[in-house]
């Protein structure tokens, strides 16, 4: 399973999803955690949709975020990506471990 977490500082969960600076993607298969810059920040409209598309391309199965806007929500649903709530400020690994445990 691949988990994605929006992050601005590279260490904790961001406040937002679609326009977060980066996405940290954790692959359960090899326990790797890679941070990808979110280019969607520059999109005038539909950053949420773009983010969903980007993460789907990376094979993400679950998104951990404090909230997800309506466009992002629709995009993630279309991509079959599940959304699990994770509080802003939580350390990335802690959020991911908590989601895996569920």
């Amino acid at each position, binding site marked *: 399973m691949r988990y994605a977490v929006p992050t601005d500082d590279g260490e904790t969960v961001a406040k937002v999803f679609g326009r977060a600076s980066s996405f940290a993607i954790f692959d359960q298969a090899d326990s790797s955690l890679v941070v990808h810059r979110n280019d969607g920040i520059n999109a005038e*409209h539909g950053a949420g*949709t*773009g983010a969903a598309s980007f993460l*789907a*391309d990376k094979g993400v199965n679950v998104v951990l975020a404090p909230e997800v806007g309506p*466009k992002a929500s629709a995009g993630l649903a279309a991509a079959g990506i599940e959304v699990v709530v994770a509080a802003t400020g939580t350390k990335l690994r802690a959020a991911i471990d908590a989601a895996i445990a569920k």
Partner: protein
Amino acid sequence: MSDAGTTVIAVASGKGGTGKTTVAAHLAIRGAREMPTVLVDLDVEAPDASGYFKGVRRSGDASEVSVLVPRLVEARCTGCGLCAKACRFGAILSIGGVVTIDPKVCKGCGSCVNACPAAALEEIPMTVGQTSSFDADGLAMLEGRMAIGDIRSTAVIEAAKKRAAESRAALQVRDCPPGVSCPATHAIEGADYVVLVAEPTEFSIHDLGAAARLARGRGIRAGVVINKDGFGDADVAGFCEREGIPVIGRIAFERERAASGAAAELWSDDAAISGEMDAILARALAAAGARTVGGRR
């Protein structure tokens, strides 16, 4: 003149709440006494001009306004994703070759269809609003109304403008959306003259400058009506003089006028207002190069 014999006056404001719709309604009423006139409500997100009239009756049918949104022809789709790349509004997702379209977000521009190499996108109309015509206490009125929650105002405004042109009135008074963003620019486009309604506040002056620049940029003459004159201290007239925009009318602030305005009532019994509106209309028509109020067709 925009069209054989039609003069189009757009009433705009830069800022909401200055009394633009009130002024537009009165100008149309005064104009109708002299020539075939139609009041066109282009504030499509919340058209409220009809609220000023007691007897509003539908005349003619409401016409649906739609934009063309894409629909996938699955059999022909190769999953190349070029449609998603072409869309600048985030309305198309292509994930693992599967295309999903969000028609609510689609602007109807057709770029995706242009981009598809497999002719796998067809276009179907999606309703975004409607245009209606009314008889409002004897005045011909036309209204564009955008569907609640929709944001595709351009299509509704353009449809209302087109329908207004078909009415062949001698005078078209457009009630425009406030501001200078997309909807306002489309509402003003094609007008022979813009009446900018301002009030004596700093806010209004700030927005008035932007509106005047817009009109100038589109090569349309403009003049300012100072509404609620005396209500505030800001020097609208001074601003207009510095910017080279003529002041074509002043409506003094009076409590009763404010109360009526808030309740969307006309200043019908106010002779001073009628006189001022006639003067404003005459100046606007003269500047637009039309025959003046009282002239013969």
